[in-house]
């Protein structure tokens, strides 16, 4: 097991990508020091450890830094393969995880920032249609990969559970402002049940920001990447 001072996580508590890494660290019982970044006033450590993107999360292990949440998750699996492995062993199942991880981060999760920035109702409705389609696909993916069990990973929380699970809170925050329910149990029964279930798991609960924190983050996002002009 890694020593506490050996692993540091640079993050902001409101960020789903940061929560994702915290969720993984918690599952793997890896001790770490958490360092909160003020995104309006980025630290020298952030600039030196992530010179390319200058964003969180950054995992610092000794004197090395690892950036991008999905890369960090795979790194954690590589350094602690026996402690709650996230990726499954078979290459095809791993490919399936990586495919859906890419889908979540490039096609699904960005819809929520689009929703935040879109003011016109017609635009919002169009985004909702995309969210409905995305959850339809993920419902199918969950049914296929869970094999009747509770998680994408089967009996145990796996890679996709962490990738998507960490997004639930922010999605709900945006949903509440837009009269929508991403994980509606009528529309997507399995995904809805899954979302409720995983949100209450201790390893994710302790990596989930509260409403006040999200309100501040939301205000910051509106200032930094404002809604589109109509």
């Amino acid at each position, binding site marked *: 097991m890694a020593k506490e001072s050996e692993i540091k996580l640079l993050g902001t508590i409101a960020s789903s990508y940061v929560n994702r890494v915290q969720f993984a660290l918690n599952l793997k019982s890896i001790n770490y020091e958490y360092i909160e970044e003020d995104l309006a006033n980025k630290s020298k450590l952030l600039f030196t450890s992530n010179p390319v993107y200058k964003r969180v999360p950054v995992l610092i292990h000794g004197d090395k830094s690892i950036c991008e949440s999905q890369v960090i998750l795979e790194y954690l699996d590589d350094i602690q393969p026996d402690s709650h492995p996230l990726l499954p062993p078979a290459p095809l199942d*791993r*490919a399936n995880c*990586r495919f859906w991880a*890419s889908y979540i981060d490039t096609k699904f999760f960005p819809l929520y920032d689009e929703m935040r920035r879109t003011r016109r109702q017609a635009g919002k409705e169009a985004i909702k249609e995309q969210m409905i389609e995305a959850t339809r696909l993920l419902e199918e993916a969950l049914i296929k990969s869970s094999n009747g069990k509770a998680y994408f990973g089967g009996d145990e929380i796996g890679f996709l559970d962490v990738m998507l699970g960490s997004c639930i809170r922010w999605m709900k925050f945006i949903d509440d402002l837009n009269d929508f329910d991403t994980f509606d149990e009528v529309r997507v029964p399995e995904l809805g049940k899954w979302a409720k279930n995983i949100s209450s798991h201790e390893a994710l609960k302790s990596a989930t920001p509260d409403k006040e924190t999200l309100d501040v983050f939301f205000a910051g996002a509106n200032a930094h990447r404002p809604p589109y002009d109509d």
Partner: protein
Amino acid sequence: MEKVKLFGTWSSPFVKRIVWALNLKNIEHEVIYEDLANKSPELLKYNPIHKKVPVLVHNEISICESLVILQYIDETWKNTCPLLPKDPLDRAKERFWARFGDEEVLPSFFGYVMKKGKDQEEAKETTLAHLKRIEQLLSEKKFLSGESFGFLDIAFGWLAEYSHPLEVVAGLKLLDEDSFPNLCAWKDRFLEIPAIKESWPDQETLIAKFQESKDGSGK
């Protein structure tokens, strides 16, 4: 015998990297060339979500997204020519830079070639900044993966193969030897790798293809 099929186009850099990986590992495969303006029912069946190439079909099961496919190939045919390194930190670095390449460098390079006017100027500046980072990665290294080539070289292979055709179409030299000595040396080394050299298409054909795309884009 295992059945491996690759759906692709002959000019796509994302398809090419899969051809390279299959050839490097001596994996017998069939390439099915798609007309993207008229996608086959098979392609739509194997990649219903994105409807894009490349798609690898292995024993009737499809794998999509080129970086996902590369890792699948590496993990399935792991005894010949391993692509990703063993060390976790090196693996993380290669995964990070491969994503950076696909998300930032490739789009800006291709964008620079296809755009015009002010957009082209901006794309040029962005591309040069990105290339400087890759140049730095190559300092004191023969390949992006280190002493010998690997995953990251395959991921950036498009830069070796496509940069000259793209430069001709743009009418400007981006990858010049004074500004990017490491990249230019790497480019030559990469293209000399036998499995890469043998898969190298005719440069004139690539130039014609990109010129056609640029003229057709009307931007």
